[in-house]
């Protein structure tokens, strides 16, 4: 299953300093609506799962059924690529190491997530390596919230990946090149990646790698159909 890493969008981190986000850190994928943040985050999850890690996928907008259907959709292409003998076995392996937590009707809170992470560890010995948080409202949340997420990442020794929604009409970019809505929070994130649709195709661009200077070639082209990294 290591073959997956050849097409993982997180190949972009091969060019980064630490090759991964790492425990206790926050990372974010920024893009405009409809570009594919969720698909991208699912590949972040798969990257971890194929490295034999455990993942919690937190959805704040979609029901678990919908998230599962996204995963199943991506599984089809991934399994085809991997040309697996026993797809069911692979799916069972991935499912066993991943839990979806959905917080619907604005029921999400950091304390609640924290309590659930404790619950999972205590009751079913499930300790994730990566937590994906999809659909979190960056614009409506203050800096202190992300500081709490950072504390949580440290406490539970997990890496937390977010998706953040940017807007075509808000061009705010800070002096370090980080766009809205992360422009005032970038010091809290170790990795910031932007999903950028262009005329030449869909690209994943590394905007921040800890405090290392970013080279312009820190970019990976993605197949827009399945978000596989294209050589």
């Amino acid at each position, binding site marked *: 299953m290591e073959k997956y890493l050849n097409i993982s969008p997180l190949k972009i981190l091969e060019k980064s300093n630490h090759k991964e986000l790492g425990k206790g850190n926050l990372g974010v994928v920024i893009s405009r609506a409809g570009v594919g943040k969720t698909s991208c985050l699912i590949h972040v999850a798969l990257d971890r799962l194929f490295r034999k890690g455990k993942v919690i996928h937190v959805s704040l907008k979609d029901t*678990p059924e919908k998230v*599962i259907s996204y995963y199943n959709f991506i599984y089809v292409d991934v399994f085809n690529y991997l040309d697996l003998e026993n797809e069911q076995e692979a799916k*069972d392996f991935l499912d066993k190491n991943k*839990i979806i937590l959905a917080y*619907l009707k604005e029921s999400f809170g950091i304390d609640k997530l924290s309590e*659930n992470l404790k619950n999972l560890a205590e*009751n*079913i010995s499930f300790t994730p390596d990566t937590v994906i948080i999809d659909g979190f409202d960056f614009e409506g949340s203050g800096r202190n919230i992300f500081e709490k997420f950072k504390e949580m990442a440290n406490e539970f020794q997990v890496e937390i990946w977010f998706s953040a929604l940017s807007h075509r009409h808000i061009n705010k970019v800070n002096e370090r090149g980080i766009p809205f809505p992360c422009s005032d929070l970038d010091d809290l994130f170790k990795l910031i990646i932007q999903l950028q649709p262009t005329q030449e195709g869909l690209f994943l661009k590394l905007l921040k790698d800890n405090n290392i200077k970013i080279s312009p070639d820190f970019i990976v082209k993605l197949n827009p159909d399945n978000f596989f990294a294209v050589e």
Partner: protein
Amino acid sequence: MVSDTKYLRNIGISAHIDSGKTTLTERILFYTKRIFAVHEVRGKDGIGAKMDSMELEKERGITISSAATYCQWKEHNINIIDTPGHVDFTIEVERALRVLDGSILVLCAVGGVQSQSITVDRQMNRNHIPRMAFINKCDRAGSDPYRVVDQLRKRLNHNAILMQTPIGLEGNFSGVIDLISMKAFYFEEPFGEDIKIESIPPSLVNEAMEKREELLDAAAMFSDELTEAILEDRVTEDLIHEAIRKGTIARELTPVFIGSAYKNIGVQPLLDGIIHYMPSPIDVENTAFDIDQEEKIISLTSESNAPLVALAFKLEISPYGQLTYLRIYQGSIEKGDTIMNTRNKNKIKVGRLAKMHADEMEEISKASAGDIVALFGVDCFSGDTFTDGSLNYALKSMVIPEPVISLKISTKDNKSNNNVAKALNRFVREDPTFTSRVDEESGQTIISGMGELHLEIYVERMKREFGAQVETGIPQVAYRETISGKAEFNYVHKKQTGGAGQYGKVAGFMEPLEEGHYEFINQIKGGVIPTEYVPAVDKGFQSCLKKGILIGFPVLGIKITVNDGQYHPVDSSEKAFSQAAIGAFKQAYFKAKPIILEPIMKISIECPSEFQGSVMSSINQRRGTIISSAEDGIFTAVEAEVPLAEMFGYATVLRSLTQGKAEFTMEFTKYLKVPKSLEDELIAKHKKV
């Protein structure tokens, strides 16, 4: 009978067991003059309440079957379905809700919102049923209707609003203050038929004023006219009723009534509430699927001259023969009409048509859209749709939970055997969550249902109603065998014992089949096995699949390729080749590394969020995999995959883990290899047998 549909109400009465809903129904029937004396569920007079028509229900003091009845109140026709309160009978509640336009949630003023209230309320939500609440038993020690209203708001997310305040509580409970008319209602002894309307006692005026303000504030959200009237101080009763009705039908408001059915207090105002706030069939949009148009969704009209569309929602055996309860959604039915069951296109002539009053009946000649009626001697299943034949519609199927438990049953004598067969035939038609089958291997009858009590009740009914002597076994899991590797076979079946001999040789290999149960590939070349014998080879292999060699359970996921063989011009026969295939199977099976598969169930558990941890832990202890968990503020829905073998008794465990506040459903999802320790155990057990 009132014929105008807008004066019709189809109402369910649902609640936790022992909250007094059967007594409430009894009183409703008494005040609407459908009965002329009142009895109790556990009646000292030995008669029992009218709605509990089954002997067992009377004995246990619980309602098992939902009996339908109707009554009239102030020019309105009200159909009532009394629904059971035990979690093992939720299908009855689901079926009742499917055909109802509104429901009364009966709550105990002492116990408040209990686990079953939560379950039932969730079912109502799922079926988009507008609700009213009746806080019963205000005469009991410890009663506190205000606390119950608070629970309705906090635990069930209802915008609950009191329509009345109590006059006294517990032993002093003597009447209610109506917050719309601002009058005190006292219910005269002995049976509360006469209502004395007086001014509000001075000591209760302030409280009543305060609660009326709350009521007006809540109602005004649904009526600009009422808002203006409040500002201009010209509020009328009609304006308040109208606003509350609007909020209730939109399921954004829950009017709450209080009383004590047992003490005959507060039932008539509740009846007034039903006609004021519950929707009539024309206030509810109903749809059906047009089978001829790829199940396109069609809106139904509640006009009685439109073509008939009706749903058989309950079958019941009564002293009058088999009854089919029908909810008419569109059109009408008259005695002598011919109607069509759209499932099997069978045409049925409507003989007797009746309105049921628990176990008594009233024959009628015609029923129209919105009505709930009973037909006699109609051969159909619960959930079938009937039309006049001009439409090929199916009404939305009801949510039917999958059975979760199976039991072997055996009988002591032949007579019992026949009686059990009759009983099972009846039960499976009455209750879609109850199934029965005969195990091919053991020849024993296996019944399946929603829980231990569910099956226990049916076993009891077999004994009592059908006089069958029945014994039950222990639950059984349906394991399967398969192979995990490829293995070759080359087998000769040869027999020479005088007369014609038997000869057949088959060669080839078996390998795992990823999708499907069995595949036979014929790669025989040069006629080494004559074509006429090939089906016998296939048949021989198939016969081995019924009972695997490893633990005696059916084999699936196997592909067999035959590529060589030999025949004898005289001694070969179909039988010989079939035997050769059986021998070949046995020769290769163990070399193909057989494994045992177990059924994996997809479990959905809904529980208040505070129990999420213990629910997940219980799944983990059962070799389960948590797939997801979704919170909506109050409840958490946990989805998991768990081996069926670990699920027996889980309903009881879950109830005790969550104080009965969780419910779960499960359905088969896939077969998976059993762990090594279980495999060894099962093999050892099989060898012992």
